């Protein structure tokens, strides 16, 4: 393992891989720092650039975007009080008050160093656990895969805060997309409604790009006021700080760092939840375990450390899930999964044993990306503040053009672009009707695999009880039921709390 990792690190230091990694990381830091541009959007923009590259070059660039984006989001969170991305919201709670109290450099670098340490702690788990987990997954038959995918979908749908029914319906809509076009077992055409673009099924990348890009950009467009001046920022901030002192502050709080990184990892491993939940949960935990919880929100270091360590460790968790099981941990790894597929690489438990150079190259890219982020921010954190003032009127049309290029380049065909446009409208409509996007995307990604494994299982042995009586499959389905029951319980509790509040208000 260590020999392969060493080889991966050496390979990654070659200019051929290092250059895409550095460029990807730089783009990630900028994309993460830009309010209104998420990491998913940034990686979607980078995707078409990777088509002409070798698989490891492309993946290195994407991993760079992912790691850079998670760290970059804290810049505007701390200095402007505007989170660059959802996973930096909790960083703002204490980072911005600390900056306002005259310590912007301390707030910023506490976040940056906590990101680096959280990410590197995640790297240890990533390298150590992915191989054994993939070996464990090799024991899986179609029954276990079916149950695993059902568990993933039910967990994501159940974690949606607004409405359980909507979360599940959103996942169901994702599954419906996968039943249009050729069936994945025999390739027989079905439910195409005479639309030739659907004959081969709906490719998931244009769907993902369309849904996420338009949902986000149109959400911003509806709030834009033409002619309104955009905020000029970044001038006159003193960001100089003693790095030794900042690192010392972090190491003086080892429990916060370790516990937040652990939370980030676990949430990263769970499919499609992502850093936005990780940073809030880690912040909440840091507050609960603190001796002075009442000071949280006024600029305490623990709040920044917990939030930033968790969202970078979350990246490692997402990579574990995609590399060991072939299930994307979030939308960013879903795009990576698409990039792997484009290069003809099958993700899943055999990924590491069949592509050891690629897998250990990805580990190496993840580790080195943290050093690259640090170097980029040491040199250019002040410039980042200027870059993030790029007007959205310039940014959005360029991003949509790159989305079109990405969709078109998937098969040099306009049908992918039409699918992109159609799902752009669909995604915006979903957001307006209050449907969460994460279960939908997971449904689109897992739909074919759920069907293939269901049919395989029934064709191997028509006894449906095997889904319950095979131990791993039974456990996974039980987990799915528990997750579903917990979600119902939580929603009921929230409803009762809301009703109690209404009752209080009446009196």
């Amino acid at each position, binding site marked *: 393992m260590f020999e392969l990792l060493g080889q991966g690190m050496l390979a990654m230091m070659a200019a051929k891989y290092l250059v895409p990694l550095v460029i990807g990381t730089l783009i990630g830091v900028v994309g993460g720092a830009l309010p209104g541009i998420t990491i998913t959007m940034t990686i979607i923009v980078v995707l078409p650039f990777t088509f002409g590259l070798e698989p490891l070059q492309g993946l290195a660039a994407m991993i760079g975007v992912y790691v850079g984006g998670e760290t970059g989001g804290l810049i505007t969170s701390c200095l402007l009080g505007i989170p660059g991305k959802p996973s930096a919201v909790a960083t703002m709670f204490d980072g911005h008050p600390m900056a306002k109290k005259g310590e912007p450099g301390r707030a910023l670098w506490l976040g940056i160093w906590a990101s680096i340490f959280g990410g590197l702690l995640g790297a240890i788990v990533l390298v150590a656990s992915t191989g054994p987990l993939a070996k464990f997954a090799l024991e899986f038959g179609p029954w276990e895969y079916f149950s695993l995918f059902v568990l993933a979908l039910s967990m994501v749908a159940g974690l949606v805060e607004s*409405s359980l029914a909507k979360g599940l319906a959103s996942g169901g809509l994702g599954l419906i997309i996968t039943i249009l076009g050729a069936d994945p077992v025999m390739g027989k055409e079905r439910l195409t409604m005479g639309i030739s673009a659907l004959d081969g099924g709906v490719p998931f990348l244009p769907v993902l790009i369309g849904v996420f890009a338009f949902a986000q950009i149109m959400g911003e467009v509806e709030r834009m006021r033409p002619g309104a001046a955009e905020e000029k920022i970044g001038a006159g901030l003193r960001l100089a700080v003693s790095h030794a002192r900042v690192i010392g502050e972090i190491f003086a709080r080892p429990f916060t760092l370790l516990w937040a990184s652990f939370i980030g990892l676990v949430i990263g491993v769970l499919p499609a939840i992502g850093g936005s939940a990780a940073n809030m949960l880690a912040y909440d935990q840091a507050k609960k375990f603190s001796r002075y919880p009442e000071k949280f929100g006024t600029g305490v270091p623990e709040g920044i450390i917990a939030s930033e360590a968790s969202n970078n460790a979350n990246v490692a968790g997402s990579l574990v899930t995609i590399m060991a099981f072939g299930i994307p941990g979030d939308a960013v790894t879903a795009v990576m999964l698409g990039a792997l597929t484009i290069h003809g690489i099958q993700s899943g438990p055999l990924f590491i044993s069949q592509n050891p150079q690629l897998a250990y190259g990805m580990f190496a890219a993840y580790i080195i990306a943290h050093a690259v982020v640090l170097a980029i921010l040491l040199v250019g954190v002040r410039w980042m503040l200027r870059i993030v003032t790029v007007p959205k009127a310039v940014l959005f049309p360029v991003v949509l053009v790159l989305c079109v290029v990405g969709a078109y380049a998937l098969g040099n065909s306009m049908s992918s672009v039409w699918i992109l446009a159609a799902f*752009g409208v669909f995604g915006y409509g979903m957001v307006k009707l209050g449907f969460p996007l994460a279960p939908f995307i997971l449904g689109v990604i897992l739909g074919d695999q759920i069907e293939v494994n269901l049919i395989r299982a029934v064709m191997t042995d028509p006894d449906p009880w095997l889904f319950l009586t095979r131990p791993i499959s039974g456990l996974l389905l039980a987990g799915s039921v528990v997750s579903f029951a917990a979600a119902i319980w939580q929603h009921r509790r929230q409803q009762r709390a809301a009703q109690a509040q209404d009752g209080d208000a009446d009196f």
Partner: protein
Amino acid sequence: MKLTRDGWGGIAVFGFSTVLFGMTFSIPDNPLVPLGPGFYPRIVLALSGALGLWMLAGDLLAKRVAAPAAPGPHLNYWAVVAHFAVFGLYVGALPYLGFRLSTFAYVCAANAMMDPPRGARGWARVLVLGLLTAGLAWFVFEKNLSVLMPRGRWTGF
């Protein structure tokens, strides 16, 4: 009883699922696969239809407390419709005008809509952004990354 967006969403999911569910009965069975290509879609559509009904029922049965309308940000849906229309025109024009011309026109139009140009300098900004985006994207993808961009049927360009 007035429906909220949950109820309308439920109706949409139920309707969509029901229509497709009906269509699954016209999928011919495959003798090689005993379950047939319509088996799994029927499960998915039945479940999603039921979820649509759950959403609708939940909305109809929900106890609503009349709350004073909170002043939210003004949302400009016309801008969204206009941007979708411009993007639709762009996608429609790509096979006819080719990547470079249609991208130039789209970026200029979208930028001008989001930030209306004032005076000659504003228009110069719009044109430069359009030219740079179309030119750079074409150069990077077509020349360096071997991604062949669409050529125009009308322009051959």
